[in-house]
């Protein structure tokens, strides 16, 4: 199977940053906060580049939806080995309400437009933990899906996917074209080093409007309120077992 792989990459708040909720509880503080590529998206890009290095696919196209800064994320994907990028411009209110449904519609439209054989996504984003985009994209395209992939290999024009599920590993064989969502143990993403970033500056990023793809971005979900999780209470140390039983009785546990 030769052809094109579409890799979706999302710009999220960096995993190491301490998240703060806005004072009006409408969302999370993003201004001036360090952003980077979603770790699962890095794994997805790495897998696509590995497939290209094995000569199983011809071209890796990195796609990101968002405002101007999304281009940085695409550049990182290009530095990791993607051939070209597509920046789907979504700004303002549309971007605030952009969710898996809208993104999967965009990816489905792009997959048809670019004649992609395979879509690889991260299994979920670390900011919303939705774990929906891959599944929705496959449903919209009526393509088979290999989600939570911890191993992907090609056998002819079929895809063998080992999935991480409750209770262990499941191996499935699916037809292509297909959608794969990457889990943590799929591979070890390479670091985008400075020389690669310089080389990637020559690669092209195309700008696309969701309207041109015929995608309606209206959200069916409205965020009412965002709160911090409750503070963890400090534990209490007791001296003897009797103390422990006494304390448990006090709090009504026994």
């Amino acid at each position, binding site marked *: 199977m030769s052809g094109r792989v579409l890799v979706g990459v999302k710009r999220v708040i960096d995993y190491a940053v301490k998240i703060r909720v806005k004072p009006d509880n409408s969302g999370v503080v993003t201004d001036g906060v360090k952003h980077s590529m979603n*770790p*699962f998206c890095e794994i997805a890009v790495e897998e696509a580049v590995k497939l290209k290095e094995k000569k199983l696919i011809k071209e890796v196209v990195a796609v990101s939806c968002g405002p101007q800064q999304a281009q940085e994320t695409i550049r990182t994907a290009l530095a990791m080995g993607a051939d070209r990028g597509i920046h789907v411009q979504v700004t303002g209110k549309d971007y605030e309400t952009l969710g898996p449904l809208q993104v999967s519609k965009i990816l489905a439209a792009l997959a048809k437009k670019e004649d992609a054989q395979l879509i690889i996504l991260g299994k979920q984003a670390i900011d919303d933990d939705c774990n929906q985009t891959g599944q929705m994209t496959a449903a919209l395209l009526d393509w088979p899906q290999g989600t939570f992939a911890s191993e992907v290999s090609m056998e002819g024009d079929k895809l063998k996917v080992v999935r991480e599920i*409750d209770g262990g590993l499941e191996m499935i064989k699916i037809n292509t074209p297909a959608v794969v969502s990457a889990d943590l143990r799929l591979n070890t993403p*390479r*670091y985008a*080093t400075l020389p690669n970033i310089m080389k990637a500056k020559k690669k092209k990023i195309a700008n696309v409007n969701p309207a041109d793809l015929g995608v309606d971005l209206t959200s069916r979900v409205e965020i009412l309120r965002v709160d911090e999780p409750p503070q963890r209470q400090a534990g209490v140390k007791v001296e003897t077992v009797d103390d422990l039983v006494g304390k448990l009785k006090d709090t009504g546990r026994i």
Partner: protein
Amino acid sequence: MANPLRAEVVRLYKNLLYLGREYPKGGDYFRDRLRAAFAKNKSVEDPEKIKEMIARGEYVARELEALYYLRKYRAMKKRNITNLTFGLLHIKILSLQ
């Protein structure tokens, strides 16, 4: 002479500087030590020794990449509690009652 190696050394320095920005003890901490390390060996002439030091620098770069990867992997692993983990916890709690 040392001239073709100079480009390599500069390239290595820039790469390490870039990688060092995310160093856990702070980008400044790393940068100061990087500059000190390169400055200390400024006067070395022998191309063999220079190549050796470049190799050592590239080793440090790989170590940094591994450090960053492990940190990220461990953080992701800790956060992504799967249904299986919840299932096991549930069984454990039931068995205690």
